[in-house]
């Protein structure tokens, strides 16, 4: 029950702050849409007409996942830096629920809110592009959840760095490009891609949305690999975050910015 109350409180806070910072939220959505229009324009006017439809569909799915990965993975870091600047990080750390639980529920809340925004944007981008992807919710949802779970693990690692170093904005800028690489490069590019976070999840979603695959067609092996990948990254992220939190407490860095 405490978890549910914690989640509700953070969902409400995320919603209220998004509403109160409405210009920021609108700017974020518009930026997302205009960048997509740019990509669409490049493919439409300069791309090979014979592969245009496939390329546009590929870009839509990858772009959506890149946006999601950015939101989820960077959020942990940004939240910690913002809380430290505001002066509320130590208050959160004093909750008997523990800071990682608070930030995780906030992250889940924010994923839900962004998930809704992303879904609306997906419809708009498909309308703009005139390309309709296969949105098989039953097949996509479990893969999506596992993929996001792995992203949380990476987010926790970034959060761990933020709790110790705080001024990690430059690193977050570089991270954007790394995440773009992870979402845009196909799994087939190298066997090593299986070991990287969330790459397999994005690939499976592409199979469903672009090639019309279903969960049954995909088979148990890729799903098992996705599950192990997500689990390993999440546990590693959690351990790393807790290690960094302890280090910050030993060095007196928790509330400092």
């Amino acid at each position, binding site marked *: *029950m*405490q*978890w549910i*109350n*914690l989640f*509700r*409180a*953070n969902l*409400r*806070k995320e919603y*209220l*702050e998004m509403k*109160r*910072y409405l210009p920021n939220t609108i700017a974020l959505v518009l930026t997302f849409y205009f960048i997509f229009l740019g990509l669409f324009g490049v493919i439409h006017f300069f791309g090979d007409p014979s592969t245009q439809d496939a390329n546009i569909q590929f870009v839509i799915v990858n772009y959506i996942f890149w946006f999601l990965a950015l939101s989820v993975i960077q959020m942990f870091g940004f939240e910690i830096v913002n809380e430290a600047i*505001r*002066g*509320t990080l*130590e*208050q*959160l*750390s*004093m*909750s*008997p*629920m*523990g800071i990682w639980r*608070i930030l995780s529920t906030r992250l889940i809340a924010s994923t839900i809110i962004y998930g809704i925004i992303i879904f609306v944007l997906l419809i708009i981008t498909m309308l703009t592009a005139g390309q309709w992807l296969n949105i098989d919710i039953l097949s996509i949802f479990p893969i999506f959840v596992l993929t996001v779970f792995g992203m949380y693990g990476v987010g926790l690692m970034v959060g761990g760095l933020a709790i110790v170093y705080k001024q990690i904005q430059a690193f977050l800028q570089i991270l954007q490009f790394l995440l773009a690489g992870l979402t845009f490069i196909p799994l087939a590019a190298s066997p090593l891609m299986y070991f990287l976070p969330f790459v397999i999840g994005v690939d499976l979603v592409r199979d469903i949305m672009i090639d019309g695959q279903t969960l049954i067609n995909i088979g148990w092996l890729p799903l098992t690999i996705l599950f192990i990948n997500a689990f390993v990254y999440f546990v590693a992220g959690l351990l790393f975050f807790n290690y960094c939190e*302890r280090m910050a*407490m*030993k*060095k*007196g860095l*928790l*509330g400092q910015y």
Partner: protein
Amino acid sequence: MEKIIEISNLAKSYRKRKSREIIQAVKDVDFNVYKGEILGLLGPNGAGKTTTIKLICGLLYPDSGEIKIKGIPNTDNRLESLQHISAVLEGNRNLYWRLTVRENLEYFAGNRGRSRKEVKEEIDELLHMFQLKDKENELVNRLSRGMQQKLAIAVAMLANTEVLLLDEPTLGLDVQTGLEVREILKSIVKNYQRTIIISSHDMDVIHDICDRTVIINQGTVVIDQRVDELIKLFEVLSYRLTLNEPLSLDQQKAISTRFPTNEYVEDQVYSYLTVQLEKSEDIYQIFQVLQLNRTPIDSIDRKAIRFDEVFLKIIQGDHQYAMD
């Protein structure tokens, strides 16, 4: 009395980022906090007060020593010990400025796993108590600093913990709000049976509301005493006589012989004689000297020692003399 917090042999050092120099913030700190008391934590800047408070809150790990909160070691069972402690560490900065007063209270209660429904009545009660009821739907960034400070304390209160730690609760407040906060703190102890630890530079606050004070200087506890006992320790029998006529040289000499620490000054209207007596009966000796020339006395005042004077004496090392 039941011990709520036990602190023993606490030590914490930091390494400065640039110079890599090691700073010993706290060393061999020992004191207990008892149920239902208001403890004042005093010390000059850099004495180790905030470090001690953060160690109690579990926001820092000690290099050595132990803190037990209700018998629970706060380094081994940090989250469990935090169920008994809440704090206001940075006053109004502890709040979300884009949320309203009520939303802040609900959010922080939620972070402790409590539902909005569960805390609704408690929030109403706190809003009345802190005189924030008419501001409950106001964004925090539109409140005065005093109101923000009161809200930060209300948030800590809502955690429903036995111990409340307040770091500089009256810092930057105007006189009226400062007094309001003091009254609120007194009523928290009286009506809610909470234990409060206050770190403050405001001697009046400590003197007015604290039962006991722990004074830290250069990272160690130099005094752990009840406030009233502490004042008694430093109290001296010091009297100031205002005279309507100046003393003759013979009278001055006689007084200097009997009371070498006297102080005598004259102005155009009065003469002032300040003497420090060993026992109160010694004042008759002064009267005898004054009677020599029938010097008229305008008034006699007992000089009381202020708490800030006591604090300064302790920091300057005079406490050893007083304790002896």
